[in-house]
């Protein structure tokens, strides 16, 4: 008996049957098509962008002597890395990015971990309510937070006063704008990563492990130090990595709070290059940004790859006894209430109130309150307020609302469908080459921050390819949809995978044996069972696209403006009340979506 596969001699019938086996199975076709599509949408644009940083573009013809468009050049990389401006274009912003990222981690991870522990493991009162309140800040887009920050801390430097300055409290620039503001704003957003990670890790750890420590005679701090913390450490580490890579790539917050005083991060500087010139330098910066994020994530996988596994070990016992806080309960409650007040209630209150103010920082006296910012229709009064009509009468707002809804609906429908499909391929191809290839390809957009990712698409689609077969779609709505869809692939396919995992293969096999073909199997078995997961995945993508700013900001022009971009430009132009009013609209929209999503069992923790 042989233990090796033998080679068979060539046989026509065999070949025919082999081909038939592949072709007759629609699943193979589906896999092939999606692999080709993923390749075209992810690998080629990335290579294209890398290539373009080495090729002379039209704009730089004059600066590079004797060069033709498309010649190989190191000009852009030299410009970026060693040129006269290198410290201003790259090293300064890079340092700023890293500093902001580092301090964001330093603030947000401990904050989120403690909150997660309090909610998951202690007898703190009103846990359910707290658990809900604590994730609300996460639903608010980070750029909205930066607007709220400005509403509170704005000072004379940007023209109109904020809430505190209006009360006569002098606000220095270092607090109102720049690194401190950016770090605090991002921390109030990204602490949710740590909160969600730590909280779910703690829930999955059987409390018997801790009780065993107690029986062995360990005190509460000892148990915490030597049992609980080591067990959740892997999730804390991955929260650190997510926070770091996300905060380095964040654009909206950094631009809102940094640009006014000339404080640039890699992401904001890059955007200036891509919308200005030389564009290819911007692409080179985007490559640096992508490499940075990839490096962080891979380092994380190397470092804790093995350890990660034990976060789920205790999954068997669902029993979890709460730790009694005793005397620490009151101070911790006060801490929580203060946190929620300052992180959520106050800024949101100020933000909302600002939309009713005639002059920001002018207090809440009746003589300073107006509905004009919302429903002011009289053009003659406009200069008295904010030089535009109220947003409900403002044609730009209408257009932006339309664009947002159009983008969100189309984008999320496509994304959710693709996600379920990709998830199906990933789960059914587990351990096979096409399954892992799909999984890896789909993961790539995750490595890229929104701005870097869209930079890649701009580089790819700003001119026609393959002799016009792929036309230039720069500046079109299609490109924005395409970008949003592909950028959300990792998330959508992850939710698709989780969804498909719940559908046991046997259910499909049973249908197969009963004579169901591929189409019947999908329509009668898989789709009905995937329905709920599909809807919640769809809602989460929907929300995520609705609040997106970073991803689409490079591609925005007058025709394609969305609400988030409109709020951003209004804020940059100093029309704060209008910007605030729009973000309040976005917030309402998102909150409603979350409530609907929750109905369908969507887990906020799984959204971005």
């Amino acid at each position, binding site marked *: 008996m042989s233990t090796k596969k033998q080679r068979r001699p060539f046989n026509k019938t065999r070949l025919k049957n082999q081909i038939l086996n592949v072709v007759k199975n629609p699943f193979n076709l589906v896999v092939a098509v999606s692999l080709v599509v993923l390749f075209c949408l992810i690998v080629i644009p990335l290579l294209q962008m890398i290539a373009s940083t080495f090729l002379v573009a039209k704009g730089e013809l004059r600066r590079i002597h004797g060069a033709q468009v498309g010649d190989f050049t190191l000009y852009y990389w030299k410009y970026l890395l060693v040129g006269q401006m290198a410290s201003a274009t790259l090293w300064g912003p890079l340092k700023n990015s890293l500093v902001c990222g580092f301090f964001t981690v330093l603030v947000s991870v401990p904050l989120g971990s403690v909150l997660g522990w309090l909610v998951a493991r202690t007898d703190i009162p009103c846990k359910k309510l707290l658990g809900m309140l604590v994730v609300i800040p996460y639903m608010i887009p980070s750029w909205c937070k930066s607007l709220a920050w400005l509403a509170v801390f704005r000072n004379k430097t940007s023209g109109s006063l904020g809430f505190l300055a209006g009360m006569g409290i002098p606000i220095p620039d270092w607090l109102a704008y720049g690194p401190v503001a950016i770090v605090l704003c991002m921390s109030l957003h990204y602490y949710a990563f740590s909160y969600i990670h730590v909280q779910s890790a703690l829930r999955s750890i059987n409390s018997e492990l801790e009780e065993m420590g107690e029986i062995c005679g360990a005190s509460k701090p000892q148990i915490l130090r030597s049992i609980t913390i080591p067990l959740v450490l892997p999730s804390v580490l991955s929260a650190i990595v997510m926070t770091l890579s996300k905060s380095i790539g964040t654009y909206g917050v950094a631009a809102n709070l940094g640009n006014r005083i000339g404080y640039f991060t890699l992401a904001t500087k890059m955007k200036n290059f891509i919308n200005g010139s030389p564009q290819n330098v911007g692409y080179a910066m985007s490559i640096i940004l992508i490499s940075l994020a990839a490096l962080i994530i891979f380092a994380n996988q190397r470092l804790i790859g093995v350890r990660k596994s034990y976060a789920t070990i205790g999954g068997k016992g669902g029993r979890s006894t709460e730790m009694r806080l005793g005397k620490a309960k009151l101070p911790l409650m006060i801490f929580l209430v203060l946190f929620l007040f300052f992180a959520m209630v106050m800024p949101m209150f100020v933000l909302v109130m600002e939309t009713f103010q005639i002059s920001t920082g002018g207090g809440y006296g009746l003589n300073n309150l107006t509905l004009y910012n919302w429903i002011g229709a009289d053009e003659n009064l406009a200069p008295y307020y904010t030089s535009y009509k109220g947003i409900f009468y403002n044609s730009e707002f209408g257009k932006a609302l339309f664009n947002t809804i159009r983008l969100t609906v189309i984008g999320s429908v496509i994304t959710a469908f693709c996600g379920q499909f990709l998830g199906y391929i990933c789960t059914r191809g587990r351990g096979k080459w096409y399954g892992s290839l799909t999984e890896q390809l789909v993961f790539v957009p995750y490595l890229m921050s929104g701005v870097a990712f869209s930079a890649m698409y701009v580089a790819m689609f700003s001119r026609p390819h393959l002799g016009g077969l792929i036309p230039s779609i720069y500046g079109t709505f299609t490109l924005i949809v395409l970008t949003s869809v592909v950028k959300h692939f990792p998330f959508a396919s992850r939710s698709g995978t989780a969804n498909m995992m719940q559908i046991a293969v046997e259910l499909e096999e*049973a249908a*197969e044996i009963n004579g*169901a073909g591929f189409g*019947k199997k999908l329509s009668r078995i898989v789709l009905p069972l995937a329905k709920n997961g599909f809807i919640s995945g769809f809602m989460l993508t929907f929300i995520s696209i609705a609040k997106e700013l970073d991803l689409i900001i490079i591609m925005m022009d007058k025709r394609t403006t969305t609400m988030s971009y409109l709020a951003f430009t209004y804020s940059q132009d100093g029309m704060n009340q209008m910007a605030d009013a729009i973000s309040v609209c976005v917030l309402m929209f998102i909150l409603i979506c979350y409530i609907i999503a929750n109905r369908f069992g969507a887990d906020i923790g799984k959204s971005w």
Partner: protein
Amino acid sequence: MSRIELKHIDKYYGNNHVLRDINLVIEDGDFMTLLGPSGCGKTTTLRVVSGLEKPQNGVMTIDGEEMINADLAYYAEPSKRGLNLVFQSYALWPHMTVRENIAFGLKIQKLPKEEIASRVQEALRMMRIEEYIDRYPNELSGGQQQRVAIARAVASNPKLLLLDEPLSNLDARLRVDMRSELQRIHKELGTTIIYVTHDQVEAMTMSTKIALFKAGELSQVAAPMELYMNPIDLEAADFIGNPRINFLEGKAIYEGGKLRVRCELDSYVFDSSDMTDEEVPSGEFDCVVAIRPEQIHIFEEPGEGRIPVQVYANQPAGSETLVSLRTGNSDFLSKQIGLAQYALDQTVYVSIAPEKVNVYNAATTRLIKRAR
């Protein structure tokens, strides 16, 4: 009602050779059990038969019709093989009622409505679960789900019914009930059944034939009693039977048409008519004497052919009593029906019928002397 023939089936997962040259004939109307410890390839064999797995080598025919020809890369679709499968997890579609679950395959076959209804009724009646027709699977207990899964499989009138460890998720009492239920179905339908299990009691009680698997290979195919009486090698002997068979090391010599065996317990002379076709070494060689616990009878008084041994431990369990015995350096177990009381270290006398003893070649582990 069909005859299945597997010829030289090989199955690899990557470089992992999980089925090694499987040759098996399942006669029309057989209740064939594929038995073996987990990971030995029995479920894979079942999936190859069903068409859910494609083997890299070999041929399979059902009633003479080729269903697999790996040389030609020909694999008939599962639904074209005239069979049905009951999964270990039951695989009931949770979004369909019992009725819809059973009717699913029939609808795909485009049977007329009345016939579907009557077949569903018939299958439910057979499994005695008519009252649950409009329930969803999650509203049923494990045992009821099991019945629905079987009803779904038999509703399509398969020529061949495949069952993959169907009882492993049931509690002990339900298992006994379902065993008799399955026996009845086999008789009522007359269908050929292939049944996968790691539980030898299930295999012994229900099957007409057992195929014993070992690490991807087929080690023995025999009727249950034959398998119990004459396991083909030491491993099979060890696997079949509860409590385990006793092994006693010994020496054997084959001369003049007689096999002479000696072990610490006794010495025997066997006639060559009791020997298997296995080749026997010349001269004296190491052997293993295997004796089923129930073949060791204990007496308190000495008598002819009775051997004195010491009682090491005594485990009365109501319907039976297990007695651990010791002689020299050998420990062995005796099983007696009913209650028996022996003092520890008491000397008792055992008698063993020589024709019930198996002898194995210690070097090859193969059976050389059969029991009768």
